[in-house]
């Protein structure tokens, strides 16, 4: 049995873990990172990045299908149209592997030692790693748990065969003819829309009264409308009960209590993600939990001295950029800097069609704080750039305090609005007031002008509506 020791050990090389390790390396900390799979975690391998590649391909295909169908407003027509999903997936895999080696390179450059294998705690300072070449013991002064999350499995629909998780959905070799999506959250809708655009006949089964239930109805309305336009059938208030006896259909109990069958070639289950808290020896160190997540304080410290936890394993929102920010912070804390979590907003994006962005507080949550608020909303129908992109659906909405105009939250729905998240996040972190946004020149013609106009609207003097 080989033994190494280090100052900092990071378990898991997802976005939280690898950022933590790179930053620690930059700060001259003797760091080891352990990863069973390829570096980059869910995000890079089976999440954010590959899904965006697939979504992009689907978008392009859908655009082209209008051209092929002779319905193109742009006057472009093409003769024949087809998609070879195997090529698409290979292209996506190419991106993923480039990024894999990119992360590995960055870790190496920062002087971080990577150990491939499955880590298991022996005690709070010692971890055993099962590697290809045998057991490796790592002793560390400080350990960071960054084990991430995994898709939730439904007991009635165990993964396997036709029942797939998002991971398998991103690696299909052909577009399924009939796809049933169980769970109308952001993952289910992102993938459901992509497959619908590529020609699948998609049915979404959602147990709650509406899809994307964590967002307000006004914000999701353009998405719901688009689902209908794409021919996606949405069953809300419906429960997935399991597979039919033949295994070729999904059994569903509808809103009014009737049992029905949805014929499907693939059944994609996207009912949420759960923290990975098993298989790595949590029981050996007995950390305090917060529900199913590891409990952390504002410095990502767990209940055990010298053990930190970051990312999805620590709770909602389970987003890569939250994990990255936590990872960076923890590395700096380990290096002796004074840091604590003081972020004002964790923007969240839903890469549906149209896209959704939220940063800060929704109007309801802002109202719930008790103070008077102002809300300004600007529709993309009044935005020149949106028109030229055939993207007039949606709007930008700004929520601010009525007394001092401090911006509390910004939401947008529309084509390509994900890129506006940078501006939204910056405005909130900098403590912008409506006047700051209204007083910033926003280049013309861009969809970003909608942000400025929404602020002007809240101030009562929008120019273009």
């Amino acid at each position: 049995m080989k033994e190494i020791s280090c100052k900092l050990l990071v378990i898991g090389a997802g976005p939280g873990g690898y950022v933590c390790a790179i930053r620690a390396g930059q700060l001259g900390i003797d760091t080891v990172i352990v990863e069973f799979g390829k570096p980059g975690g869910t995000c890079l391998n089976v999440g954010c990045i590959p899904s965006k590649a697939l979504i992009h391909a689907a978008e392009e295909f859908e655009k082209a299908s209008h051209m092929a169908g002779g319905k193109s407003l742009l006057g472009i027509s093409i003769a024949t149209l087809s998609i070879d999903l195997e090529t698409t997936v290979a292209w996506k895999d190419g991106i993923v592997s480039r990024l894999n080696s990119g992360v590995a390179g960055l870790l190496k450059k920062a002087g971080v030692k990577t150990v491939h294998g499955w880590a298991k705690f022996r005690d709070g300072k010692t971890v055993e790693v099962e590697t290809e070449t045998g057991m490796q013991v790592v002793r560390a002064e400080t350990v960071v748990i960054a084990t991430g999350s995994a898709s939730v499995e439904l007991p009635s629909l165990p993964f396997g065969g036709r029942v797939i998780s998002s991971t398998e959905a991103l690696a299909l070799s052909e577009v399924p003819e009939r796809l049933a999506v169980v769970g109308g959250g952001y993952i289910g809708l992102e993938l459901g829309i992509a497959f619908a655009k590529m020609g699948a006949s998609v049915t979404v089964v959602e147990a709650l009264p509406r899809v994307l239930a964590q967002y307000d109805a006004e914000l999701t309305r353009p998405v719901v409308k688009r689902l209908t336009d794409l021919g996606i059938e949405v069953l809300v208030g419906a429960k997935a009960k399991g597979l039919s006896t033949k295994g070729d259909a999904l059994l569903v109990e509808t809103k009014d209590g009737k049992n029905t069958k949805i014929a499907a070639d693939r059944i994609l289950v996207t009912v949420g993600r759960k923290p990975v808290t098993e298989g790595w020896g949590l029981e050996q160190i007995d950390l305090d939990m917060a529900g199913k997540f590891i409990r952390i304080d504002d410095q990502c410290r767990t209940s055990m001295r010298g053990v930190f936890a970051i990312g999805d394993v620590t709770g909602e929102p389970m987003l890569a950029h939250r994990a990255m920010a936590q990872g960076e912070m923890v590395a700096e804390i380990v290096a002796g800097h004074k840091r604590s979590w003081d972020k004002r907003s964790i923007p969240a994006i839903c890469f549906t069609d149209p896209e959704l962005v939220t940063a800060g507080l929704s109007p309801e949550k802002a109202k719930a704080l008790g103070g008077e608020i102002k809300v300004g909303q600007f529709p993309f129908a009044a935005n020149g750039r949106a028109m030229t992109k055939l993207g007039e659906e949606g709007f930008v909405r700004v929520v601010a305090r009525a007394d001092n105009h401090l911006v509390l939250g910004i939401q947008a729905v529309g084509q390509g609005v994900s890129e506006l998240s940078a501006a939204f996040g910056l405005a909130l972190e900098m403590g912008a007031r409506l006047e700051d946004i209204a007083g910033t020149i926003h280049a013309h013609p861009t969809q970003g002008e909608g942000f400025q106009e929404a602020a002007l609207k809240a101030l009562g003097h929008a120019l273009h509506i």
Partner: protein
Amino acid sequence: MGEHIIKLPDVGEGVAEAELVEWHVKVGDLVREDAVLAAVMTDKATVEIPSPVDGEVLWLGAEIGDTVAIGSPIVRLKVAGEGNVKAGSEPAEEGVRAEPPAKLATPKPEAVPATAKPAPKAEEAKAKPSPSIANSAARPSVSGAPRPEGEKPLASPAIRLRAKEAGIDLRQIAGSGPAGRISHEDIDAFLARGPQVARTSGLARNETIEDIKVIGLRRKIAEKMALAKSRIPHITYVEEIDVTALEELRAALNKEKRPAGAERPKLTLLPFLMRAMVKAIADQPQLNALFDDEAGIIHQHGGVHIGIAAQTPSGLVVPVVRHAEARDIWDCAAELNRLAEAAKSGTATRDELSGSTITITSLGAMGGVATTPVINHPEVAIVGVNKMMVRPLWDGTQFIPRKMMNLSSSFDHRVIDGWDAAVFIQRIKTLLETPAMIFVD
């Protein structure tokens, strides 16, 4: 449509100016004839200014606390018909306003007609934050301070990082930026103030500064006190009085059945003191006087007009019991009660609040052991009543409990010698300790 200018009317008694203490209207209000527009305060009386016409308020010429000259325009109304301003008379009117520049307030920017642009500009210049660190430290936060409990301090990520590294709790810093945003300068200023009080105490620093305009009665009091203390060299004399006998008498009188029909108020100690002072003044009339120090004349009054310093919700006032020499103990008490009530409810007239020739000040149960009363200028003496309490007194063989009370009295040493002051108080002491003497001529 015309414009009607209302000028501050002559409020009487040869007053040249008055202080604006209250606006009853604001720009944009519609007013009816005889509706009260404002209240101004002269020496001690408050006078309400009614509107002579119906109209809409266009402009207010002074801010609360400003001293306005009689005849200065204070309100402009938009009225139906001609009004009292002729078209084209604007420059003349401007001239009127410019005449007593020091007496007039800067017009409110929003109410200023377009011709008077410079005023708002000056305001802007004033509002511009000074670049100097010291100033920004002294300046209270522009908005949002004090920050409501639980609200996160508003600062950019760079500021938050800097504060964290410097070990500064941003909640202790009042931001000077928009919406109370904390800037690097705010942190500089915070650090420049040096080591802070021990944070371990868990007590938060309160950095707020509230600006309170000294107006109305408070300003009158301030002026009066400053005048008295700067002009008059005070000599204060404290003596203790055994009021056991007086208290017995007072209790007996209060217990006595009121004769039918006669209004007999409950007696406090003050009427006895007033009567004792009347008797002492008969021997020493120089103490019941007004000293006109500019003219170098002492006006020695025959009538004893005793001012009684009284605390009211808006501050200190001195209602006056006139001709105490001509009132018996019951009359003194009744008049005292009536005046105290009027002063508390704010209905006391100007006459009732002025014209005293000597003053009593009493804080009742709050009276303390001794005080240093400030003479009610231009009077020459003030008698202060301290708290009565049972104290042990040595009677030659043993300690006996007696009801004791101190009198702390101040005199204008320019015209009253210490000896005379002592004689005066000793005379009052004798009268109060043997109260029957008060009633014997």
